C-alpha cells in the first residue's frame, strides 16, 4: 500500500462509494462492449460481402461497351449541308458486334504487364434452359477454365464434379447449385438450352458450384468458350470480355484507366463494378461509429455527473486538503485519477464483455433465407478494435472527468471552512 498520497486518496474515495463507482464503470463497460460487438459484426459483414464479391469480380474487366453516343448519324451524312440542323429522335445503334477485336494481342500484351497476375478471356451469353414446357433464364460463361481458376477462387466453391471436366468433354457445363436444383439435374444429366437468337444445344452437367450468393448460384454456369461461340454462331476468335487479376488489387483503378487508353475498350475496376457493395460498407462503418460514439458519450455524461456529485459531496474534504497545503494540481490529480480508473476498469470489463458478446454472436446460426450461404453471423476478431475500445473509453472518461476535477481544484477553502 505504498501509493503516492494523491492516489491513495483517490483509491479511498472510489472504495468508500463502491456502488457509484461501479455504476459509472458499467456505463463505460456497456459503451465499449457495444462498440466492440458492433464493429466486429459490421466489419464481419463487410468482409463477408467483400470476399463474396471479390470471388466473383475480376480486378479489372475489359469489355466492349454498347456505344450510346449518337452525335454523328447517317442522316447528317445524307444531308451534308452543314447549315441545316438535323434532329433525330429515338436513335438506335446499327448492328454491331460486341466482341473485342484483336483480343489475342491484348491478352498477350496484358500478360507481359508486370502488374498483372493472370488474364482470362470470356464470352458470356444469356440463355434459356428448357425445363419441360417452361424456360428458365440463365447465363453461361464461356471460359478457358485453366485461366479462369487463376483469377477466381473457384476450386473451393465446387460442390460436385470437377472444373477440369470441362476440358475433357466439349459439351460439359458446370452449374450453379441453385440453378441445378431448379432444373432438377445433377452430375451426368443432360440439359437443353437455347440462345436468344434461337440456336439450341444439349450439354452434360459435369459439376456444380456454390458461390454463396443466390444471385449467382441460381443463374450462372461455366462452359468452354467454344460452346458459347457455337451457340451464338460466332467464329472462334469471338470473345466479349477479358478479366484481369492484378498482383495488388489496390492498383485496379489506375490500371483500368491506362488499359482503357491503351486498348480502346471499356476497362472497369472492381471498385466500380461493385460500387453498391462499397457504398453499403461505408454506410455500415458510419453507423457503427455513430452508435458507438453515442454510447460512449452517454457513458461520458454518466461519469461527468457522478464526478460532479462526488465533488459536491467532497467540498469540505477538498477544503481541508487545500488548507493542509495540497495544491490545485494535487486536487485535479486526485479526482482525475478516479475517473481514469473508472474509465480503465470499465473499458477492460467492456472488452471482455464485448469479446464474449461477439463470440456468442459468431456462434448464433444465421437466419439465411437462401440469399447468402452463411452458417453463423459473420463476426471478425481483430486486436485493433479492442485497442481502439480502450483508447476511446479512457479518452472519454478523461474528458468527462477533467471539467469536474478542475472545478474541484478551484474551490475556495476559506468559503467552505468558515462554516
Amino acid at each position: 500500500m505504498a501509493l503516492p498520497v494523491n492516489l491513495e486518496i483517490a483509491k479511498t474515495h472510489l472504495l468508500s462509494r463502491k456502488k457509484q463507482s461501479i455504476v459509472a464503470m458499467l456505463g463505460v463497460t456497456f459503451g465499449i462492449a457495444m462498440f466492440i460487438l458492433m464493429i466486429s459484426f459490421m466489419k464481419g459483414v463487410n468482409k463477408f460481402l467483400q470476399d463474396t464479391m471479390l470471388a466473383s469480380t475480376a480486378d479489372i474487366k475489359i469489355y466492349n461497351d454498347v456505344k450510346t453516343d449518337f452525335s454523328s448519324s447517317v442522316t447528317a451524312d445524307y444531308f451534308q449541308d452543314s447549315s441545316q440542323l438535323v434532329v433525330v429522335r429515338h436513335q438506335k445503334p446499327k448492328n454491331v458486334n460486341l466482341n473485342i477485336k484483336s483480343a489475342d494481342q491484348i491478352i498477350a500484351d496484358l500478360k507481359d504487364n508486370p502488374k498483372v497476375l493472370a488474364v482470362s478471356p470470356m464470352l458470356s451469353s444469356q440463355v434459356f434452359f428448357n425445363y419441360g414446357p417452361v424456360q428458365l433464364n440463365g447465363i453461361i460463361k464461356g471460359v478457358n477454365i485453366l485461366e479462369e481458376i487463376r483469377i477466381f477462387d473457384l476450386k473451393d466453391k465446387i460442390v460436385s464434379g470437377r472444373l477440369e471436366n470441362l476440358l475433357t468433354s466439349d459439351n460439359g457445363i458446370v452449374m450453379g447449385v441453385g440453378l441445378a436444383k431448379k432444373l432438377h439435374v445433377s452430375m451426368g444429366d443432360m440439359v437443353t438450352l437455347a440462345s436468344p437468337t434461337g440456336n439450341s444445344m444439349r450439354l452434360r452437367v459435369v459439376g456444380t458450384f456454390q458461390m454463396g450468393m443466390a444471385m449467382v448460384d441460381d443463374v450462372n454456369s461455366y462452359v468452354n468458350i467454344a460452346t458459347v461461340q457455337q451457340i451464338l454462331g460466332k467464329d472462334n476468335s469471338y470473345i466479349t470480355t477479358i478479366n484481369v487479376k492484378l498482383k495488388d488489387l489496390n492498383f485496379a483503378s489506375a490500371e483500368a484507366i491506362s488499359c482503357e487508353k491503351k486498348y480502346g475498350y471499356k476497362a472497369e475496376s472492381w471498385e466500380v463494378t461493385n460500387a453498391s457493395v462499397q457504398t453499403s460498407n461505408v454506410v455500415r462503418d458510419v453507423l457503427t461509429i455513430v452508435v458507438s460514439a453515442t454510447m460512449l458519450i452517454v457513458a461520458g455524461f454518466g461519469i461527468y455527473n457522478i464526478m460532479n456529485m462526488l465533488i459536491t459531496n467532497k467540498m469540505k474534504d477538498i477544503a481541508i486538503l487545500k488548507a493542509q497545503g495540497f495544491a490545485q494540481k494535487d486536487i485535479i490529480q486526485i479526482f482525475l485519477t478516479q475517473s481514469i480508473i473508472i474509465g480503465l476498469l470499465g473499458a477492460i470489463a467492456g472488452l471482455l464483455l464485448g469479446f464474449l458478446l461477439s463470440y456468442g454472436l459468431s456462434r448464433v446460426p444465421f437466419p439465411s433465407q437462401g440469399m447468402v450461404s452463411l452458417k453463423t453471423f459473420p463476426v471478425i476478431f481483430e486486436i485493433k478494435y479492442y485497442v481502439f475500445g480502450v483508447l476511446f473509453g479512457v479518452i472519454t472518461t478523461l474528458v468527462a472527468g477533467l471539467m469536474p476535477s478542475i472545478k474541484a481544484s478551484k474551490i475556495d477553502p476559506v468559503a467552505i471552512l468558515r462554516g
Partner: protein
Amino acid sequence: MSEILKTIQLNKYFRETEEFHVIKSINMTINAGEFVTITGKSGCGKSTLLYLLSTMDNDYEGEVHINNTKVTGLSQNELAAFRNENIGFIFQFHFLLPEFTALQNVMMPALKLAKHSRAEIEERAYAKLKQMQMEDYALKLSGKLSGGQQQRIAVARALINEPKVIMADEPTGNLDSVNTGIVFDIFKELASKGNTIIAVTHDNDFAERSDRIIEMKDGEIVQ
C-alpha cells in the same frame, strides 16, 4: 526573540452586496515561541484575520510576512507548498477526512511534503498521536470518533510537519468542558515546548493562559 510573523497595513474588504471593511489597517508582529490568543466579540473579524495569516485567503491589501518570507503575492501553488511546510491549522469543527483512519489523517500533510520516508512518517504520526493520547485510535476511521477525539487528532495532524506556526480558530469552541480541558493542556504544553501558537478564542480562561492577548474590535486591534 526573532520575529516569525508580521503584517503591514493589512486591510480586507468584503464586496459582495455592499462594501464591508472587515480588517482595518492591522500591523502586528509575533515572535517565535510566542503563544498568542486573539479575542473579541463575535463578528469582529478574528476568523477572517486568521485566514489571512494562514495564507488560505489572499484577497487583501497590505503585506504578510511569515518566517522571513513575504507570502503576499505568491502564486496559489507556492502558497499551498508554503502552508504545507510552515503552518499547522486547527479548525473549530475538527475537520478530519472521515473516510480515512486517524493515522492516515495525521500522515497526510507529511506524505504531501514528502520530506521523509513513509515508514518514518508513520512513526512520527504515531508519536504525535501518542502525545495526544490517541494512539489506541490510530487505525479507527476518523468519522467514527467523538468530537473531542477528532480534535485531538486534528492537533496531531497540525503538528506532523513541525510547522513554524500553529494557528487555531476556536479549537475548543465545539467541545465539552472535559475535552476543552484536554485541548487547553495540549496547547499549553505545545507552547512550553517553544511552538509558536496563534489561537482565536472567546474563552477568557484560555486567553488568560497565553503569553499575549490581542483584542479585536470591529476589525481593529484595540490593545
